[in-house]
Every structure is written in C-alpha cells, then in structure tokens.
C-alpha cells in the first residue's frame, strides 16, 4: 500500500519530527508506556502504524480526557509520583518525550523508567546548544529559544541539562546508551554522534537506553 492509499498517512505526516524519530525507535508490536503523552499523538501513531500496545500517563486532565475520547488508554498521573505503581518490566519501552526537564527528580524518574521498561526512550531540549551558550555568555540572561520558549520565572522546565550531563546520568544510573539522535531545528542532524559536537549543535536530543 502506498502512503497515498493509507487514510492515516496525513496524520503520520503531521506527527512532530521528534516524535516521528521516537516512533522509529520502537519495534512493531511492542508494549509502550508514554509518560507525559500530551494529546496522545505519538501513542495514536504507534498504535496505527506500528501495532504497539500503548498506554499513556499525562499530567493535564484536559489532555487525558482528549486521549481517552480518541480511544487511547491514558490515565492522569505525575511522572514524579505515579510511576512507582507500575510493575517491573511491564513494558518494552518507557518513553519520556520533552518532559524530563519538567520533573522534580529526573534521576528517580529515569530509574523508574528503567525498572518499568526493557528500554527507555528520553528526549529533552539540550542546554548545551550553541545558541543557549551564546545567550548566556553574551547577554548574561537565561536563554529563551525556540526549544526553550518560556522565561525563567514562568517555565515548567526546572531541571535543564546538556547532552553530556544526561550521558553522565545514564552512566550513574547504570544504563547503556543504545542510540542517540540529535535534532537541529526540526531536522535530524546525522553524523554528530552523542559527544561534544552533538552537545554544541543539537537543539534536542533523543536517547534510547537499556539497562546494563
């Protein structure tokens, strides 16, 4: 079937680029927990195109209701407090997209994800991006960029990190980095690896992790 024959193709095209990259990391037919699933776009895509058995957790009740109304299995919950309810190894993938920086205890969230899922997929805005560095270096102010849009006093993002910081945390938590993708703007920046260059040029990063 060509993409044009597929009634869901337009939805697939509309999937945000970082979510599309995450979707590409998920094995078809897997069991997935999307933590902070927002309006359910990724879960819906995974269910339709990769036949996953998906569950979602979302802080905003409004978003939860929208997800359930579109037929997704989603509960209202807080990544900081409610992941403890899930049994160990209940999922193949625990996904946290652009949410880690808004959690109170990112390390504990990451450890919970490692416990719940065989793999963890985490994406976050990279505070090591050159634009962020310039912002702070030359303006002497907290950066406000496309991927970090709110001013410091109103941002829900309370735990920013760089790609190198996150790599350290993964090692500290005993997690193996299986794959790192780096985005500049909305595009995948290939060939940057996951090191210093990626940390300078990547606006967002996506890590696929596994327990060591």
């Amino acid at each position, binding site marked *: 079937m060509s993409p044009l024959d597929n009634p869901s193709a337009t939805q697939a095209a509309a999937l945000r680029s970082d979510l599309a990259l995450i979707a590409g990391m998920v094995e078809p037919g897997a069991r997935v927990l999307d933590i902070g699933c927002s309006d359910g776009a990724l879960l819906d895509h995974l269910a339709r195109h990769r036949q996953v*058995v998906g*569950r979602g957790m979302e802080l905003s*009740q409004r978003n*939860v*209701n929208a*997800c*359930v*109304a*579109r*037929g*997704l*299995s*989603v*509960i*209202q*919950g807080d990544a900081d407090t*409610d992941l403890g*309810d*899930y*049994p160990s190894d*209940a999922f193949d993938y625990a996904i946290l997209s652009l949410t880690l920086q808004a959690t109170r205890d990112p390390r504990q969230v990451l450890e919970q994800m490692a416990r719940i899922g065989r793999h963890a997929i985490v994406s976050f805005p990279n505070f090591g991006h050159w634009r962020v560095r310039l912002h702070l270096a030359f303006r002497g102010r907290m950066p406000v960029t496309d991927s970090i849009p709110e001013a410091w006093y109103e941002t829900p993002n309370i735990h920013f990190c760089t790609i190198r910081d996150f790599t350290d945390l993964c090692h500290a938590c005993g997690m193996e980095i299986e794959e790192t993708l780096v985005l500049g703007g909305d595009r995948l920046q290939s060939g940057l690896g996951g090191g210093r260059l990626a940390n300078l040029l990547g606006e967002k990063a996506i890590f696929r992790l596994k327990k060591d």
Partner: protein
Amino acid sequence: MLDCGVELGPFTLAYQTYGRLNADKSNAILVCHALTGDQFVAETHPVTGKPGWWSLMVGPGLALDTDRYFVICINVLGGCMGTTGPKSINPASGEPWALDLPVITLGDMVRAQKLLIDHLGIDKLFCVTGGSMGGMQVLQWAASYPEKVFAAIPIATAARHTAQNIAFHEVGRQAIMADLDWCGGRYLAEGRNPDRGLAVARMTAHITYLSEPALHRKFGRRLQDRKGLTFGFDADFQVESYLRHQGASFVQRFDANSYLYITRAMDYFDLAEEFGGKLANAFRSTPVRFCVISFSSDWLFPTAENRDVVHALNAAAADVSFVEIESDAGHDAFLLDEPEFRDTLCGFLNGCAEHRGLSFP
C-alpha cells in the same frame, strides 16, 4: 449459595433490554444500577412515570447507542422491582421474606447476573458499566469473570465502602428501623409501611449525592413560596421543601427492607479483602480494558477512591484509562449528560469496538 453460607433458590431476576443482540452475541453491554436504581434504564418508569435513570446516556444515537449495542440491565438481588428481595414471598412461609431473607453481598448480586448472562447465551459481555454501587458491580464482574468481560467502565465508585459511607448508610437504616411502622421488618404482613423512616433515609442520602455548590446553585437560601421566615419548623427554605419532596416520592417506589439489604451489601463490599488484602491481586493479568471515571465534586465516591482502583490496575499492568470529569453536580453527575463525560464514554467504547472487531451498520 450466597456469600453468607445460606442457599437461596429458586430466585427471580427482573431485567430489561434495549437494542438488538447481534448474530455472534458480541455487542452486549451490561449496565449495573446503583443503590436505588432499577432495570428501567432508558424507558418510562412503570411506577413513577418518569424517564429511565440513564435515559440521557442509553438510547439510539446516545453514548450507549442502542442502534449498536444490546443493553441489558438487571434489578439486583435484594431489590424491589421484580427481582427476589425482602418483599418477595418466602416459599417456606407464604409471607414476604422481610428480614428472613439472607444478607446479600455484591458478589451474590454479580453471581446471579452471571447466571442470566449465561442463560441469554452471551459468552462474553462487550462491556460492563455502572455508577456508584453499579461501579462496584463492574469491579466485581471484572475480578470474578475477567474472561467474560471485554471492557469495564466503573464510574464514580470505589473498591471498598469507606467508613464515612457506611456511617451514612447506618443513619438511613436507623431512621427506617426507628419508624414504628417498620414493625421489626414485618410491615407488609402488618399492612403498614415505614414511610417516614424511609423518607428520612432518602433525604440524608440525597444530600450525599449532591455538592455544596450544586445545592447553592439550585436553592441558595431562597425561601419556599413565602416572603419571610415563619419562625416555625415548616419548610421555609426551598432546599427543605426539595428534600421533603425527594423523600416523599421515593417511598412510592422503594421498599424499606430492600434499602436495608442493599445498603448492607455496599457496606460489606471490599474487593481487596477477597484477594488477600491486595486490590491489585483482583486484577492480576486481567485481559479486561478499563476506563475509570470520577467527578471532581463527588465527595461520596471521591476521585481519590477511584484513583486507588486505577493504581491497583496499574500495578496489575492492566489496560486502564482514567478520566476525572469537571462538574459541580456531586456524585449524581454520573446521571447527567456532561459533554466531557459523554465524549469519554463514546471515545472509549469506540476504541474498544475497534479492538473487539465490532462493526456497525
């Protein structure tokens, strides 16, 4: 055999159905009614002449669309609308059972319903749903017969009756039993009826179904057909008049002893206890898809109680959705047609129908 160890039989179950059962009998939805509900979900009530208690949700084109689904509702064991209950005749004595009827539990009610579902030749219910005590039955169904239930929607409910709720029930029961016309439960044989006691029980309970904002919005401190206070104990306030009316109309359609039996069944409900004290064990490796729904202003079955069910389902790695609907209508919100509530029901049912492979004309 009832949970209390006594055998009851033969017994009668009264039920109503709406819509048509499809050829492979895969489109049946069992609606479980609440404490004072009955099987007349979506039609004019034969006693009160009022619309069915969930007529806003069940019917052609509604959330529980009877053009698609075959909806069944069964009067619970211990009830008073045709199913065997304390006002039914005890074959041993030829008189109404009254308090000689063994105490009924939620488990007994659901086991009885299962017999009827089997009798109808339905191997697997597409969905079991209900609010309040109906939600308790939903949880009991999912725990007792997980392979017989495809989807479950427990609404405004809890996996156990709280101390506060037992306390309110006890006030209601004491009001009934303090009425001299109750006659130790033998009022039917004596040709009397504990109307005043039952009305007080209903008035108390009715307050718990609402919320302060709802009462304020509906009545405030407005006076009933008068310009000023009467400095007496007549119903000066609209809210008093409303409650008196609720009590008076309730006694026309409900049996006082049934009220005792069914409130007791709810008090005894503690699903976790049945499964070694751990609620998650009740849902261990359950194939059932759950959608738990609560209402923000419900203080009788608050969101926290519903969320406990969700936590247990998560711990059992069950497929669960959880929605809290914003509403100021209190516990009774589940009887109303809140748009968000309807969207949740429709979305969840549509998703389940897709997974179940149900297709509709």
